[in-house]
């Protein structure tokens, strides 16, 4: 090799243990990144030639860059909660090299112009930001948005997150058109006609606290309808956001068995907490869908273990303090989640439930990449995009919300002792976070 052919613009990740579920690798491997791509994956010390930079990954796990299918970066228009810059900084600290941001902003992201605006360098994103565009104009549920144009503009899916598509005809239309374009329709499954004035899960706890409860049926009925539609409509792609109930899971399992193109995500808070965990009307436990019963959580855990779940997504939903520190019933729904997701997965799923790390990595990488067809991501096979997450699965640490990269502090996990920490996030071959 001549000096001119030396590995320029390169980063060699050396001495780590690579987990790449797509490549079926779970072994010590070095990874060479070059010009934003994976140039080589080889046994330790087998990569020849030097590199501009080296990353010492001894004792650490090297994985494809994590992908979060469901975040709220709050731009445009809600910068008092979060900005693309602060939200993606939090994402990087949480090991996410790609995030898919929801369109329920002000204004709603329902046009090509706004999809492009999200990608402009002025936004200051430090990780890849993919737009999920509104499924209907202004998410009003009356007219479908221009799927074809949004798809060509690079939106990865459509959703009226937070304002579910209740009308059967509208959902059918969305799935038909989405199917033609191979465009996933993401549904926040909640029959809002059944959840008016509700602020937590309907059960013994909500009765005791005097809070009106959202029934599991309000989620399950919409999921069941959507799965039925997905089974009937050729090529339709349904993605169920933040699935939280055992009953909804049954519908999804049936759809998957029938080979319908149905995928779904679950959140760290739903596999970690239940409705019994909220104390003293603390609105950091208020999110939608709400924390569910123990039986629901067990069903979600079983689906994580048996391979049914496609992805872990955070539903990162930052809010300013004044929007949360108020009457529980009036407080905003949602919690921040980017910086605790991996640690909760390792602590709850790996250490307590003995789900293998390979499976956990898949839920953060290959799984979500498949849901939204994020080509070149979710794996580190040669030629892939050079997005890498490096983590220490044994590191014990305490999460301090005050030190979060996010603009907001609304999390129930403040002060939690967790195991498993992100050491670095590498985006396009560049280290954007190291902790």
């Amino acid at each position, binding site marked *: 090799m001549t000096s001119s052919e030396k590995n320029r613009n390169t980063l060699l990740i050396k001495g780590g243990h690579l987990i790449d579920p797509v490549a079926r690798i779970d072994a010590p491997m070095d990874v060479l990144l070059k010009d934003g791509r994976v140039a080589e994956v080889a046994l330790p010390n087998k990569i020849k030639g030097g590199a501009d930079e080296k990353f010492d990954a001894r004792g650490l796990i090297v994985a494809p860059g994590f992908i979060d299918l469901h975040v709220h970066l709050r731009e445009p228009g809600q910068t008092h909660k979060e900005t693309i810059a602060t939200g993606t900084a939090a994402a990087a600290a949480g090991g996410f090299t790609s995030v898919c941001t929801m369109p329920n902003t002000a204004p709603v992201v329902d046009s090509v112009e706004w999809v492009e605006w999200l990608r402009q360098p002025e936004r200051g994103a430090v990780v890849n930001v993919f737009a999920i565009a509104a499924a209907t104009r202004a998410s009003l549920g009356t007219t479908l948005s221009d799927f074809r144009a949004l798809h060509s503009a690079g939106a990865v899916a459509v959703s009226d997150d937070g304002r579910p598509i209740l009308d059967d005809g509208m959902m059918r239309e969305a799935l038909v058109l989405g199917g033609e374009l191979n465009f996933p329709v993401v549904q926040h499954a909640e029959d809002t006609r059944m959840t008016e004035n509700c602020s937590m899960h309907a059960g013994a706890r909500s009765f005791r606290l*005097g809070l009106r409860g959202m029934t599991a049926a309000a989620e399950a009925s919409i999921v069941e309808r959507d799965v039925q539609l997905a089974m009937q409509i050729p090529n339709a792609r349904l993605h169920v956001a933040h699935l939280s109930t055992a009953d909804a899971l049954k519908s999804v399992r049936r759809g998957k068995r029938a080979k319908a193109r149905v995928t779904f995500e679950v959140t760290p808070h739903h596999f970690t907490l239940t409705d019994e965990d909220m104390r003293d009307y603390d609105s950091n436990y208020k999110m939608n869908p709400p924390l569910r019963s123990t039986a629901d959580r067990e069903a979600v855990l079983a689906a994580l273990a048996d391979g049914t779940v496609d992805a872990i997504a955070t539903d990162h939903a930052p809010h300013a303090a004044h929007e949360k520190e108020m009457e529980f019933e009036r407080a905003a729904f949602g919690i921040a989640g980017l910086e605790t997701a991996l640690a909760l997965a390792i602590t709850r799923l790996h250490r307590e439930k003995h789900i293998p790390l390979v499976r956990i990595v898949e839920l953060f990488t290959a799984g979500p990449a498949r849901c939204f067809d994020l080509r070149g991501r979710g794996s580190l096979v040669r030629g892939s995009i050079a997005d890498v997450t490096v983590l220490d699965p044994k590191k014990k640490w305490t999460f301090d919300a005050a030190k979060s990269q996010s603009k907001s502090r609304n999390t129930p996990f403040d002060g939690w002792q967790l195991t498993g920490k992100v050491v670095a996030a590498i985006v396009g071959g560049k280290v954007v976070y190291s902790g």
Partner: protein
Amino acid sequence: MNPARGSLLGIEHLEAAEVLKMLKFARRMNPDKARPLLKGKRVLLLFYEASTRTRSSFEIAAKSMGAHTVLIQSAGSSIEKGESLLDTGYTVRAVGADVIVIRHPNAGAPYIMAQHIDVPVINAGDGLHEHPSQALLDAYTILRNKKTFKGLQVAIVGDIFHSRVARSACHLLSKFGVKIILCGPPELAPEVAATLAPGVRVTRHIEDALRGTDVVMLLRVQKERLAGLMIDLPEYIARYQMTPARLKMAKKDAIVMHPGPIIRGLELTSEVADGERSRILEEVHNGVLTRMAILARAMGKMR
């Protein structure tokens, strides 16, 4: 921040001994010849929701012990202009409140207040959650009439779901081993209500609720809180209205209670409301005594 000492946010987490202490102290109270235990103190009554009995009896209780009272209602205050719960709390604290008595349509509002304000907060009813002063005055009334909680059976009939009175009563009576039977249609008395406290069960049948019962507690059907629930009122009256004939199914010396406001001709007939078994007005009277105890406790004067 932990709630200030002397706060009364609910019955659920109160010790039975503390309840008895308050009831005992209330027994010694007389609004016409009260010691000035609250002399010079400022009691802020923060009412975000309509109230007749609770507000007036807290006010009389406070004044009879020498306190100044200031009433703030949502209409005509900054609350109407969109001031937040906590900002109103900080404001009344800055004005010089020594105690805050709060009635609010949202469950848990007094908890939020108590976590941020360093004076005792008294819950005068929060949404569907709790109404501790009502439970204490009801317990006081039961004790005055039945001498002891031992072996008692209490039937609570009506809109349990929307009732903070029912929730507080269940918590309180359960601490003393009282058998509690909740009775109403499924929309108003859901099965889950039985999980509130030990000794609570749910029945759909009024005969089942009344047989062997010492105390019949009636609740209003809260039309303003039904929020889309369809209740067939004629059907409700046919199955659950307390009539003299039905009352005969209870023990001979059973008493009738109701937290008010009563709707004659709906949950009870006038004969029952005005009958010799009725203790409805006695409850109102006892409300002043128990609220004197609650306020004295808030100021550390319950000795």
